[in-house]
């Protein structure tokens, strides 16, 4: 089965590990992702200004190109892209007047677009559709005695209209990993905000949040953390180095994209990971748990 694929800019630059491992999972389940041609940056944040439609153009253009591709199911891996594309689609679907206005502005686009023709789907949703049982059948390495903390952040779960799972108690990652015998630890900050773009000018906010989130996961005996958002990954992973320098009591925790861990468990060549992209080296714990 073919599915349209929208990578977004980050997966092509700083989150290459996510793209490589995420896409490597799909052929196992007979899914071929087809990258849509000449996609544009989604804008990274959904614009809330109702009177400046310019910021809606980028995600809408991408949705149009997905429609043109003939595979109207559009796979994303990045939570920011998921959020932006999905909300833009909803916006244009629900507001006919604004839709017409945007259409008139983009008068060079040949394809008419209403907002409901393309279904944006996140990789986690797709894997949940496949189901944990089917995924577990492909299990190559039994990850005995592995405890992970899942982290969802905001973009996949909020706002309600576009959420991929419950914002209170999401289970997308739990379903996959528990089904194959990985223990998912309980801790209270799975859906806490990582601080998002505050990293640009209020770094201390991110440091504060990372400390809280990571320390909580460590206290609950997690061996590592898995997540699906490149910005959360940057905030929760890269800033740990600073926290180590600031506080000798801070215990770091390796952070991986969920697809990296899943790929290891399903026996995909670990070489597709570039471990040097990690600030907190996950290889010792992965070796200890027999995954490397």
């Amino acid at each position, binding site marked *: 089965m073919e599915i349209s694929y929208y990578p977004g*800019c980050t997966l*092509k630059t700083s989150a290459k590990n996510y793209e490589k491992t995420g896409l490597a999972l799909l052929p196992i389940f007979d899914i071929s992702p087809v990258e849509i041609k*000449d996609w*544009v940056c989604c804008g990274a944040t959904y614009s809330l200004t109702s009177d400046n439609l310019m*910021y809606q153009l980028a995600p809408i*253009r991408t949705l149009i190109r997905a429609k043109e591709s003939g595979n109207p199911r559009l796979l994303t891996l990045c939570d920011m892209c998921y959020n932006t594309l999905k909300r833009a689609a909803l916006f244009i679907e629900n507001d006919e007047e604004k839709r017409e206005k945007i259409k008139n502005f983009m008068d060079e686009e040949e394809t008419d677009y209403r907002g409901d023709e393309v279904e944006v789907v996140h990789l986690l949703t797709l894997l949940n559709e496949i189901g944990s049982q089917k995924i577990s059948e492909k299990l190559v390495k039994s990850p005995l005695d592995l405890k992970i903390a899942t982290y969802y952040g905001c973009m996949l779960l909020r706002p309600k209209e576009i959420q991929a799972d419950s914002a209170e108690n999401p289970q997308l990652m739990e379903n996959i990993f528990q089904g194959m015998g990985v223990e998912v630890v309980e801790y209270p900050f799975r859906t806490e905000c990582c601080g998002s773009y505050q990293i640009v000018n209020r770094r201390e906010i991110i440091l504060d949040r990372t400390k809280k989130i990571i320390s909580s996961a460590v206290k609950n005996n997690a061996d590592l953390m898995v997540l699906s958002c490149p910005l959360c990954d940057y905030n929760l992973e890269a800033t740990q180095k600073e926290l180590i320098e600031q506080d000798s009591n801070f215990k770091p925790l390796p952070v991986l994209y969920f697809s990296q861990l899943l790929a290891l468990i399903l026996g995909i060549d670990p070489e597709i990971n570039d471990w040097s992209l990690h600030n907190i080296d996950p290889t010792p714990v992965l070796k200890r748990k027999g995954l490397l």
Partner: protein
Amino acid sequence: MAKQEHQNIMDKIASANKSVTTGVDEKDIEHWVTIYIMGDEYKVPADLTIMQAMEFAGFKFTRSCGCRAGFCGACSTVYRLKNDYKLQTDMACQTRVQDGMFLVQIPFAPADKAAYLINEETYQPNIFIKYYPEIARCVSCNTCTKACPQDLQVMDYIQAALRGDFARVAELSFDCIQCGLCAIRCPAEIVHYHVAQLGRRMYSVHGLKKEENVENRVKEIEKGKFNQDFKKFLDMDEQEIKQAYRDQQKSKEVY
């Protein structure tokens, strides 16, 4: 140089620069159109290019004019047509006048070009952001693409630059003539053609495989394989060179 000879050369240069309509009697011109150059009305022959029409109207180009063949990108023109809201862009030397054209020439696109040593840069996607961080302001409005007289997919190559896809930037921007119309229309104030040039340079220096035959030929040149032949040509007088050229043209060998 004798004074008379100098005068002849200057006459030749002057006549080469004349509009093509020079010497045609106005009463022999059948079709006329009315155009507006910077607000003033002019009647001009219908089959002229914008550039020729402006010269016919009495304008002398000291800027906004270069190769007159659509390659150099100097003669950026912006215009509207009567009863049409669209702002159009074209090369003045490549576009025919139309009745009711409101015209202006763009003498120059102001832009700062980043300085870099291409051989010292690493082949990493973030180089575009390093030198042209404003490309992250692109909202995909596509105004640049609409402005391009070469019909390039300008927005798409800026987006390719944003994700560091050197090959795609080079491929999509290859026919850019650096006229600057994209840059003066862009609401995000991006200077597209400089970004594209950085992309093409990076791709050719770091991305493309070196061609073996070119490398070999460079080595041969450096070793002096062709020094003898060069000397032979340098020693020839004008007639001999002309003859050698004619002989080469007659031969089937194509270089």
